[in-house]
């Protein structure tokens, strides 16, 4: 009986400990969120979303071009980064137990530790200098390089966790291997992969350093891939390091806008995939 009481006590203690971690984790995150919202909300307005930036001291102005720019850059990053990241992840899961697989897995882990500024500098040397211009393309590729290691590793782990029985059942029904991988295995892991993609997008949308040396910035709207492009993070950086109070206010509001955008994307993706997913459970 004593052993049972002890085990129950441990159970309760562990439950409380886990519950406590929720509070410990949420407290600073809530504090950061509160700081951004409380300081940024004052500057929110329709103009802020749609207008171009104004010089210091002039009222009005907004970050419309930066919002469009961030969307453009992240879109480009996804174009390059998602196939490579998810593809590499599937490779590692399906064929990754040989020497090449180990090498690629290790490389992906090490790459996830490269500071974003180093990636920016490398992208600068590889793309900006030969092209003789700062461009949205260079920025998108820099962000893609940032996204790939994380996507690859997470996708691999999630695909590996798909039960073998599902794959075997599909193969037993005569479905080709590649179709099994795509339609059965990947689809089952899709919920998790969507999370990984959203995490990667969040990270890419929040980066500053790689963009400073690749996409530079732009005071105006831009849709061309070979021109500098504005982004919310670089704009926040410019406003935050300035000495002026009204620009500091704009920095906080722009940070809030960034959070709102990423949150909406997240929400939209969740709602969109809800109907199409079969849970692994």
């Amino acid at each position, binding site marked *: 009986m004593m052993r049972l009481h002890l085990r129950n006590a441990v159970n309760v203690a562990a439950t409380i400990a886990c519950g406590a971690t929720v509070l410990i984790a949420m407290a600073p995150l809530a504090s950061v969120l509160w*700081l951004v919202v409380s300081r940024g909300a004052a500057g929110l307005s329709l103009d802020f979303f749609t207008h171009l930036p104004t010089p210091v001291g002039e009222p009005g102005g907004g970050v419309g071009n930066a919002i469009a720019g961030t969307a453009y850059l992240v879109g480009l990053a996804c174009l390059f980064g998602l196939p490579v990241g998810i593809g590499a992840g599937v490779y590692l899961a399906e064929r*990754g137990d040989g020497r090449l697989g180990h090498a690629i897995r290790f490389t992906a882990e090490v790459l996830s*530790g490269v500071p974003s500024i180093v990636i920016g500098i490398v992208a600068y040397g590889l793309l900006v200098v030969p092209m003789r211009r700062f461009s949205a393309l260079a920025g998108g590729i820099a962000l893609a390089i940032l996204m790939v290691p994380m996507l690859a590793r997470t996708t691999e782990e999630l695909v590996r*966790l798909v039960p073998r029985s599902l794959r075997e059942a599909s193969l037993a029904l005569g479905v*080709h291997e590649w179709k099994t991988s795509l339609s059965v295995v990947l689809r089952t892991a899709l919920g*998790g992969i969507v*999370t990984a993609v959203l995490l990667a997008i969040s990270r890419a949308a929040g980066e500053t350093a790689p963009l400073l040396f690749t996409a530079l910035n732009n005071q105006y709207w831009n849709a061309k891939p070979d021109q500098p492009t504005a982004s919310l993070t670089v704009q926040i950086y410019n406003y935050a390091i300035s000495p002026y109070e009204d620009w500091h206010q704009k920095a906080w509001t722009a940070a809030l806008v960034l959070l709102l955008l990423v949150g909406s994307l*997240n929400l939209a993706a969740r709602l969109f995939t809800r109907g199409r997913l079969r849970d692994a459970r």
Partner: protein
Amino acid sequence: MRLERTADVTGPVGRAPVAPAGPLLPANRGDRLFAVGLTIFAGIVLLIAGLIVLMLLRVAHPLSASTSIAKFITGTDWDPVQLSFGALPFIYGTVVTSIVAIVLAVPVSVGLAVFLVEIAPARVQPIVSFLIETLAAIPSVVYGLWGLFVLVPLLRSPVEPFLRQVFGFLPLFRGPAIGVGYLAAGLILAIMILPTIASVTIEVLKTVPPPLREGAYGLGATRWEAIRMAVLPYARNGIVGAVLLGLGRALGETMAVTMVIGNSHEIHASLFAPGYSLPAIIANEFAEATGPLYVGALAGLALVLFGITIVLNAVARLLVHGVGSRASA
């Protein structure tokens, strides 16, 4: 239909090769194209790493003329005017802050994930996950500002004096409490990598098959015992992957760290002291660095960071395999 070897069926739980180890040349064109496509994408990962390393080596080349690798890594003098460069203070700061971050973030993230997936009602998890993922998008600059406005004053008093009172016998907790320093940076890193580790761990835990849990309950386990003995081992590799991703982020984080670490070139034992980290100094000095030796030294720092990442990842993998081979025996 291909025959599968028996060895494939009895691999360790969760880590069995999902493709049979039989003849590797797929039987039809679709399979071949798929295999080639995947290999190309995987190869691109190697290409990226190769390009980065090559580029850094090329830029760092002038450094090899003026100093040896050993002197660079152990040197403590960073003087851009006299062109004398040593990386030790930054290595020390990077390692210390990353360790602090991991030690703090991993139990909290895993506990959080376990609570959300195993203990809390099912409806709570998506909401909290959504919050955590969105918080992953907060720009580094904003974390840095929060650190300056909220965390640093909090550390200056009451936290650091309290730690000094209680744990002051350890050299880690001595010295004046300025607020900025290794502890501030470690804390901010912990908060920044928490969403990454927690989100991935949550997804991993969600894939644990119910029969595993049910089996444990059937044997009379309490909920915690079921988690400990059935769920966590199954998810172990996924969780390790999540932690390594978090470690990667901690090692490479720039902006937030440089705003709260104090940016001092000296090495101190105390966590309260100001310090420096490899990404922070690269970010601080790159834009203004001129001259091939100075820029080369910064590229050298990036290579050193690469080296540290490789070492820490290898150590982590060894530790995990060491534990794993005992557990599954």
